[in-house]
């Protein structure tokens, strides 16, 4: 399913990244790296700029009027804002899953086939094969194989979210950005998604935004903690999961990860 089977997926490096909306600074001078195949959890209170940071990595921020990004962001060692970066290629390499499931108002199967067609998979059998493969990868195939032609909107919230993950996986990404993928779902569906992400670990480089600290602890190799001070967000500390939860250096991290504030 991946673009280059066998080889390690691309890593992410952020160096002094600042995201502004007009004059308002959403997150300032964020620096961290997610190594190839690693899962980093990005935690922190609402409004500290986690979503803004994710949007800067796949350049969805280009679409927001007034949004400017400074600093350096590299995926697989390549600057995402280099003039020769093709947006379609970048967004195929870096998949994204949102808080609210956002399937297209198409059939279940067409939600995967349509992006595949757009990305130049012109052979119908090949599209169907990759559709099935992706739906199997998210454990949805058995549930929907009898109703591939029905509207995706008729699926449950959890199934829709898995469909969106399958839609992203079908394009063969190396990096996955998850923006609170479980927080709009019931606990049972959230558990299914969490298990699914666990299964994806290692094969993809994953940046996961979550409010659920126990979940971060269960899933993450490394953790980055964001905080808001004086109206602008920043990354206060990042490092291996164990270190941040047991022996954090920064008092904010100690308080937040220890469950005292936030």
């Amino acid at each position, binding site marked *: 399913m991946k673009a280059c089977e066998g080889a390690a997926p691309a890593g992410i490096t952020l160096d002094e990244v600042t995201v502004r909306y007009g004059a308002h600074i959403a997150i300032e001078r964020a620096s961290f790296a997610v190594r190839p195949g690693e899962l980093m959890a990005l935690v922190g209170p609402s409004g500290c700029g986690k979503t803004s940071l994710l949007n800067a990595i796949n350049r*969805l921020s280009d679409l927001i009027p007034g949004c400017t990004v400074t600093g350096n962001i590299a995926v697989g060692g390549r600057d995402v804002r280099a003039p020769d970066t093709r947006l379609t290629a970048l*967004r*195929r390499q870096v998949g994204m899953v949102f808080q609210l499931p*956002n399937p297209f108002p198409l059939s279940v199967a067409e939600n995967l086939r349509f992006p595949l067609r757009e990305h130049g998979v012109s052979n119908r059998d090949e599209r169907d094969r990759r559709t099935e493969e992706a739906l199997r990868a998210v454990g949805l195939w058995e549930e929907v194989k009898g109703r591939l032609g029905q*509207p995706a909107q008729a699926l449950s919230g959890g199934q829709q979210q898995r469909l969106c993950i399958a839609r992203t996986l079908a*394009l063969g990404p190396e990096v996955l950005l998850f923006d609170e993928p479980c927080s709009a779902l019931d606990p049972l569906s959230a558990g299914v998604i969490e298990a699914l992400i666990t299964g994806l670990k290692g094969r993809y480089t994953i940046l996961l935004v979550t409010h659920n600290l126990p979940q971060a602890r269960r899933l993450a190799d490394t953790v980055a903690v964001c905080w808001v001070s004086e109206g602008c967000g920043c990354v206060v500390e990042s490092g291996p999961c164990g270190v941040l939860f047991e022996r954090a250096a920064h008092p904010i991290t100690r308080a937040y990860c220890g469950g005292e504030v936030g």
Partner: protein
Amino acid sequence: MRIDGARDRWAAALFASASLMIMALPLLMLVEVVGAGLPRLSLEFLYAPPMDAGRAGGIGPMIVSTLAILAVCLCAALPVGLGCALYLAECVPAGSRAARALGYSLDVLGGVPSIVFGLFGYRLFAIELGLGFSILSGGLTLACMVLPLLIRVSEEALRATPPSYRQAAAALGLSQGGFLRRVLVPAAAPGIAAALILSVGRALAESAALLFTAGYVTRLPDSVFDSGRALAVHIYDLSMNVAGGEGGAATTAVVLVGLLTLINLCARRLGQALHRMQRA
């Protein structure tokens, strides 16, 4: 909802009677027109040519002219209108200065009296472009007239689609063209159909703008370069210029209302079909 006090009760009664009156008025008009026009309605009336200046005979040529003018109008207005609406919805950020200015000018254009469009169409299509009094001149003039409304309502429909569709398409690196064709336009199809219905209604009801452009010859047109009389022009002529033409005018009005209802039904069906088709 609970209503306290005598003053509130009075206000409620006032509003209720006002809305009843508003509903009753068009109903009364319809009953009046149908009552006066239905007795003369027959199959022959629908295809026979008029006789004795429309006091006798039928309205066959006018139905053909009306449909031809409408077809020309829609063929010109739909692609241009949908294109403009797509441009406005996709490329002009909502609430920006450009969006406000463009919206305002469209609203002003939409409020311009049809007779002004008639004079404009006469000058541009009939004289400057040499199309003369013809179905083509009339249809193109009507297209100009309905465009502001068509654009505005379609733009609203496009903007009302959930932003999550666009977000998903962008995150997947889809082309804008593919997204528009496959997701956005089908999702907005019912709203675009509503815009179409409003435009058709306005075009069918128009007489002033057509007097100067399509003309009022009652002959069956051979081509779009011939002059032709629309149903609304026929109604106007019978009731204003022909003594004893009221009966014919009422019957023609019944046909016009019937035609309008039929087209509305078709457009609505079409919108829903498009909406459903995209899932396949």
